[in-house]
């Protein structure tokens, strides 16, 4: 049997989003063998790619699992991001009342934030505008959360995956789960198109597909559906003037449509929340995009399409049980891990909790004596304090590929040397920002495709733009 089934892994993690990779990275620092399975052809292809990049300090009432996971996570970001080469900052956030009706809602928000372990203070409208001069003059008051952080969620996910691989985890992309082998009520292997993967423990971190995976495993019935969020991305000429994340008074389902800076200087307007059925539906629509503008103008009047760089949509994994980190009720070696909104913010705490729960269930692997804890930092032309010295490190820093985002050939080449390299133009964008700037690849996409050819050996017609099968062209001319 072992010959046909290959080696058994101590843990198989399903889903290479921010939670799956965080869990894989954490478990890989133990002596356990870890295999990470992902349906898409890259990490961070679901909710983790399309979120606003907020590392929050407060989202849920004190005493909830979500509040606990966030409280376990947020003080650690400086250390984690330094080790994993992930952009991070703590600009702080303002939850803003713009009508007299909203004003009384601020005090309970502030009190709950403090009770949940965050720092928070109530501000008058004038005080809030001092912190964020772009705020609307209609601002009546605000809750200031000074420790709210901004993070690059894609590079965080890539960083977790890279760390997992550096510590020996196997990462299998383009590897959907087809089913499970079960013996005596226990999962024994995960069936994939490449054959079965034997597993002692299985972690279901499949995001929007989590319900399907659980059903295939004969686990609990978990209803998870896609909640679409649309965004505008605005130029850094706007984003760099924004000092704070600006949030409306929250609504029942979501935090509402926000105006937030990003770690690369741009700003996001969004997300809205639309319950849909098809997880592959990631399209924006004109009416929703117009609505986003209207809503955000109320918070920051300078919001303008003059700064628009791009739009996108992404699906969060909505579920009645909004945050799941626990063993499955019917399969003893299956763990359910999911989060409909704060997956990024809760990822370090979630990974630790998964390890604790596994240990309670009999997982007996100790920490490796000397695991890899730190990834090599790739210097970036746009952010380096001493750009003139870059070519001494790698002569390819003399070749700018993407002008808008100031990405050099050295930075792109460094990504191809990693355990989880890019496989498409989109993969390069996710890791370096190349093609993601003001001109959206008008100037550089051909150069990026050429580098992709160079590193993958594929001809230009076969270079993939984004997902598998979506090539730049449809063939080659004779």
């Amino acid at each position: 049997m072992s010959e046909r089934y290959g080696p058994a892994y101590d843990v198989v993690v399903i889903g290479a989003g921010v939670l799956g990779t965080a869990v894989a990275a954490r478990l890989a620092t133990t002596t356990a063998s870890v295999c990470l399975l992902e349906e898409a052809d890259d990490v961070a292809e679901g909710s983790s790619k399309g979120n606003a990049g907020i590392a929050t300090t407060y989202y849920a009432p004190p005493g909830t699992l979500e509040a606990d996971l966030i409280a376990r996570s947020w003080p650690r970001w400086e250390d984690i991001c330094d080790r994993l080469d992930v952009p991070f900052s703590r600009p702080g956030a303002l939850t803003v009342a713009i009508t007299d009706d909203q004003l009384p809602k601020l005090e309970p928000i502030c009190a709950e934030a403090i009770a949940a372990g965050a720092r928070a203070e109530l501000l008058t409208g004038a005080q809030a505008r001092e912190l964020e001069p772009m705020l609307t003059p209609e601002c009546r008051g605000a809750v200031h959360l000074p420790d709210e952080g901004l993070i690059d969620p894609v590079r965080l996910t890539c960083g977790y995956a890279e760390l997992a691989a550096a510590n020996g985890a196997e990462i299998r992309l383009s590897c959907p789960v087809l089913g499970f082998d079960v013996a005596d009520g226990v999962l024994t292997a995960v069936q994939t198109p490449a054959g079965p993967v034997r597993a002692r423990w299985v972690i279901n971190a499949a995001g929007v597909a989590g319900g399907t995976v659980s059903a295939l495993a004969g686990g609990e019935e978990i209803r998870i559906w896609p909640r679409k969020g649309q965004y505008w991305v605005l130029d850094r000429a706007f984003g760099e003037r924004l000092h704070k994340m600006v949030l409306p008074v929250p609504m029942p389902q979501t935090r509402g449509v926000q105006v937030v800076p990003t770690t690369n200087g741009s700003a996001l307007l969004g997300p809205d929340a639309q319950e849909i059925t098809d997880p592959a539906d990631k399209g924006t629509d004109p009416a929703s995009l117009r609505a986003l503008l209207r809503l955000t103008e109320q918070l920051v009047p300078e919001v303008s399409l003059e700064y628009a760089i791009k739009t996108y949509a992404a699906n969060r994994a909505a579920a009645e049980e909004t945050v799941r980190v626990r063993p499955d009720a019917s399969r003893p070696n299956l763990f359910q891990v999911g989060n409909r909104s704060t997956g990024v913010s809760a990822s370090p705490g979630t990974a630790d909790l998964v390890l604790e729960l596994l240990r309670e269930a009999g997982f007996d692997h100790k920490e490796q004596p000397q695991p890899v804890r730190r990834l090599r930092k790739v210097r970036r032309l746009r952010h380096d304090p001493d750009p003139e010295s870059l070519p001494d490190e790698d002569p390819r820093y003399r070749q700018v590929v993407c002008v808008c985002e100031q990405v050099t050939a050295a930075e792109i080449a460094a990504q191809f040397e990693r355990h989880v390299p890019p496989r498409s133009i989109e993969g390069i964008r996710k890791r370096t920002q190349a093609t993601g700037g003001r001109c959206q690849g008008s100037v550089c996409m051909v150069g990026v495709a050429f580098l992709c050819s160079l590193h993958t050996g594929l001809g230009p017609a076969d270079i993939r733009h984004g997902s598998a099968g979506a090539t730049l062209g449809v063939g080659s001319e004779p």
Partner: protein
Amino acid sequence: MAVVGAGVAGLAAAEELAPRREVVVLDRLPVPGGVLPYDHPGVTRLAARCTAAGVRWLLGTTAVRWEQGRLLAVGPQGVEWLDASHLVFAGGSRPATTAELPVAGPRLAGVLPAPVAIHLAEAKVTLGRRVVILGAGAWAEAAREAIAGQRSHVTVVTRESADGVTFGHNALISGWTPVAVSGRGRVSGLTLERAGQQLVLDCDAVILAASPRPLRNVDGAIFEPAAGVTYVQPAADAGTWEQAASAARDMVSQVGTEVSR
């Protein structure tokens, strides 16, 4: 003075400025010409005049950041700050992006800015069997020319009247506004709107060539006005190269005329 862009406009501006100030011309590409071939007679003539007037060349060098008084330049010589009292930016034009148009929908393969489509076609990549070109101006015409040998069915879509469409096509739709692309992974449809009506075109490639605007990619010199920056970006459809050169000269006629301090 630093002139960024060695197309016709940048060259003409450099020639105009050279008698007044010390001028260095930078271009991302290793040869002058911009969108024109380097051996185009207008380009060679302008470049020769620049050299004769004492213009210094930094070709194959990308300008990335302008802070008043200095320009970060990256090229074969390394990464270096160039001292410059003034930046003359002649970056040419590019078509509008989907966000700028705006065209909604998912992010799909097969939706390509015209400059990318042109380069890919030159590399023998078949862009699509049913290609839609958005726009009817210079970028659209250049894209049409680039894919002329590909035996694709080409539909041109223009928001305005069809009068300006002087190049060949298989179908022409004018007076309709593109509002969204659709598809899974690769584009398979383009939705157009007119007076509340919708029309969906089947396609496997959409070339963005509409609403050209100045290409701006040097940080600190993106939005007008920027301190110490003069933009020399005549409209994409400025006419002949002589007309573009003449427009560029006019745009810098007052630059560098004040007494140096």
